[in-house]
């Protein structure tokens, strides 16, 4: 861990300004990802601005939906009665993530901004364009295929986004509310928050330097059953090999791309009356096929089709 300075933000605007003015600064909330990465010399901030105690930890009713504070911890969000009532897909996604201890610390905004779990990103002896832009991507020819992106990857990066929560937020059409360094706030759909890797996989979101996620806005739940399913090597506390969120006719996929993946082709096919299997095929036929990901593509297709079928048996929120 490199030496760094620390301040606890008095209010959101001063936090935003403090980070915007200092290229080495980062926000700290739950710290469940950032502090680990600092210990491993992967993240090297020179200054931390602690926003974990700002008053953004509540849930409010807004226009038939909910507004969730960015600093609300995952376990509280998953246990919130209104969230449980309206968004079972979000609850399932939240409790599928990490461990109980981590969910007690990790925040809503921080969960969205967690970094990839690609093993090569974590091993600082290996090239990684996220860690060291221009050094190359070790994962491209690496030995671990199960977490690789199958949509929207580039020669510079095939890492996937690890969040479960973000997949549910994507399927629910949620957006983030941010505070920008100018003091203005703006709203950005979760599905537009993260970027595909392209040539700059180190740039992971469309947030400006210093821009702070203050809330997540959940619109009223769509009609139809909600399902979240995650495939993983053990029953808990494991990163997904793949996941799928379904809410009514909407479908999003997790651990398949550099961002939570809204499966537009599935949705279009379902809207056109396709079966679940046909709809899944419509999306997976567009995947970036390689000799190492055929099994994952098959898995995601089966998983998506099964979840769509299952959603038909679930109550509407």
């Amino acid at each position, binding site marked *: 861990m490199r030496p760094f300075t620390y301040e606890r933000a008095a209010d959101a605007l001063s936090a935003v300004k403090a980070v915007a003015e200092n290229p080495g600064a980062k926000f700290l909330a739950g710290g469940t990802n950032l502090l680990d990465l600092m210990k491993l010399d992967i993240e090297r901030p020179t200054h931390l601005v602690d926003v974990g105690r700002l008053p953004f930890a509540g849930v409010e009713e807004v226009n038939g939906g909910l507004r969730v504070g960015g600093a609300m911890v995952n376990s509280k969000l998953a246990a919130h009665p209104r969230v449980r009532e309206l968004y079972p897909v979000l609850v399932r996604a939240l409790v599928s993530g990490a461990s109980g201890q981590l969910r007690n610390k990790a925040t809503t905004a921080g969960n969205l901004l967690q970094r990839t779990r690609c093993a090569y990103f974590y091993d600082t002896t290996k090239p990684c364009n996220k860690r060291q832009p221009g050094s190359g991507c070790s994962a491209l020819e690496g030995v671990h295929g199960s977490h690789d992106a199958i949509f929207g990857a580039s020669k510079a990066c095939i890492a996937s986004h690890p969040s479960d929560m973000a997949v549910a937020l994507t399927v629910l059409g949620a957006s983030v509310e941010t505070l920008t360094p100018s003091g203005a706030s703006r709203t950005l759909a979760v599905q537009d928050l993260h970027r595909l890797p392209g040539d700059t996989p180190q740039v992971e979101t469309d947030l400006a330097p210093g821009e702070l996620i203050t809330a997540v806005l959940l619109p009223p739940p769509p009609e139809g059953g909600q399902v979240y399913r995650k495939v993983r090597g053990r029953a808990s506390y494991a990163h997904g*090999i793949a996941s799928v969120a379904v809410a009514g006719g909407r479908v999003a996929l997790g651990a398949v791309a550099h961002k939570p993946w809204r499966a537009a082709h599935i949705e279009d096919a379902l809207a056109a009356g396709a079966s679940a299997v046909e709809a899944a095929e419509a999306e997976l036929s567009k995947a970036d096929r390689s000799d190492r990901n055929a099994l994952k593509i098959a*898995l995601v297709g089966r998983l998506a089709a099964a979840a769509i079928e299952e959603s038909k048996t679930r109550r509407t929120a």
Partner: protein
Amino acid sequence: MSSVKDWAAPNPITENRGGLIGKGVDRYEGRLKVTGSAPYAYEVDAPSRPAIGYMATAAIAKGRIARIDTKAAEASPGVLLVWSHLNAPAQAPRGTRANPRSQRPSNPVLASDRIENFGQTVAFVVADTFENARAAANLVEIEYAAEPGVVDFVASLDQADQPPGEEDVHIGDFPAAYAAAPVSVDETYESPIQNHVQMEPCATTAWWDGDKVTVHTSIQMVKGGQHALAETLAIPSADVHLLTRYIGGGFGGKGQAYDDLILAALGARALGRPVKLAYTRQQMFHGTIHRPAVSMRVRLGAQPDGRLTAFAVEATTHCARNAIFTEHAANFSRNLYAAPNRLTGHRLVKMDLPGAGPMRAPGEAPGMLSLECAMDELAEKLGLDPIELRIRNEPEVDPETGKPFSVRQLVRCMREGAAHFGWERRKAQPRQVRDGRWLVGMGMAAAIRGNFLLPAKAGVRIDADGIITLRQGMTDIGTGTYTILAQIAAETMGVPMEQVKVEMGDSDFPPAPGSGGQFGAATAGSAAYDAGMNLRKALTELAVGDPNSPLYGGPAEYVTFENGNIAIENRSETLAALVARAAPEGVYVEGSISPAADARDYSQHTYGAHFAEVGVDVVTGEVRMRKMFGVFAAGRILNAKTAKSQITGGMIWGVGTALTESNVVDPRYGSFINQDMAGYLVPAHADIVDLDAVFLDEADDKANPMGIKGVGELGICGAGAAVANAIYNATGVRLRDYPMTPEKVLAGMLAVGL
């Protein structure tokens, strides 16, 4: 030398008048551990505040350090010392033994510019704080001259050779019998590299007092650690005081001294103050040993009635080029099933990977994954129940040596396990049971693991307050050794548990070989029992020779020890009263155990039977345990609670073996892909449901005076095969490549059209 016949007579342990033997006594040190107040090696109180060490590690698998620049690290805040191979203190060359009796040779660190494996220690920083030490270590600049290495096991199988000094075992004519067998199986099973992932990483706190060094370290073998440090530093072992009082898991991975021990001691000497050093979680993966991958070919030839006529288990594995170790994955099969024509043996590839070494039932754990699945495959071909097939091949004597078994209850384990588990619910045809999205299946496997007794000593003293203190250079790696030694001492002396103290993990104490190979309880415990018997003798002499004792003059052979009293019929006094009066300075005696001269005349093992029920997600290939049950026969059980905890812990490792645990070498770099516990998956709580185990009543009077045997490794033996067989029974997909991850199961399901 003693004979096993000497152990047949009743004694205080086998008579168990106090009822402490077998009782589920709570852990002796449990309160300390659950309150966080048991000081582990990194947490002990040193004479002054320790400086903190941190290791920088190699980024290549093989080659040399072309240039190393430590200037930035030296200038970093708080740094007290930076060493590389250029300026590290002189140490004895690797492998030397100045004292031929040393149990471990020299193991120097930073000894040259050579890199022999990824993750090798290449620099050592000591600073005032952990954070400063780590930050400085990250500033060490190294240029490597890399050389090609052998790092890909599968691609290097053609380099496999006979392990040094070993030969295949041929009995009868295997090739002819196999060729003639009407029913046969010929399959190869793959077990991957596995890591121990002990909860506590290796760690040492060291300080010097003149020429003598005190080290608190996390190691399974006290003497081995003491000797390795003494040899490396080229000092007398008497100048090394090694303590290892609490150990957060070993699993075989802490059977040897690592760089933390050497560097902490060297750093403390150079700085004249205590130094402590721990491996990080990530460093443990390459910086300590692992279980090597094993490729196992099993060939079984049987008659239509199921009797095996030809039997071969051949294992190919690997080890580090300069640290020969063989995972003896075929050995267990030499004692398990009858077959007149037999072939077993091993091949070894020397590789440029970190050291391979013992881990959780070395040999059996990966080995049984092969044969116990092959038996399942053979049973199906024969149309026999897997238990029935095993019963038809139950040998009357050891199938390799012809020696009698000391006691063997394998068949009873299988039968009682089947009845309790509900094995009759299993469908012989696979893929017959569906529960929602789950395909449900059952599997079983036998378990066998050798039993051992090694030489050991123990010291026991009684003080004027009646407190009995057992001292032994033994270790408790979380298994319950403190507790069972306290039970043995209390039962031998006829006192309540509260009257016994156990002190261990100290090189000044009478030596015991430590924890490993499931020999710990029998070995250390037998020496403790013997010391107790010697103390009884000493106290008897004291009492009958003391005119002030109510036992004065009484016949020594009638003296009993019960309820804290020494007595002859109705004449008695407390041990405390006797000692306070007749030996107020206390009485100290020692005891010992050695293997009986005729112990090798018997085939001596522990046995068991595993039963598993799994669900396989028909969409994703995810396997989830539904039920697991084991029946074990392992001699007299000392502590129902700690023994069950050990045996079920082994079964859980078996689940990990079957489903999740694996490391993979990236051949481009010669490094393991998984370097933390987010990538290297062991079972979590949610993976383990409805898991239970029982022990059969047993006493093995050929084992040791107490008739006990080890349970530390038996639980994992065969467990993973039971899970694999259940996956087959659920899906009809026969996987032979562990672990059975969702990807592999799905690939198998796709191949059969599921």
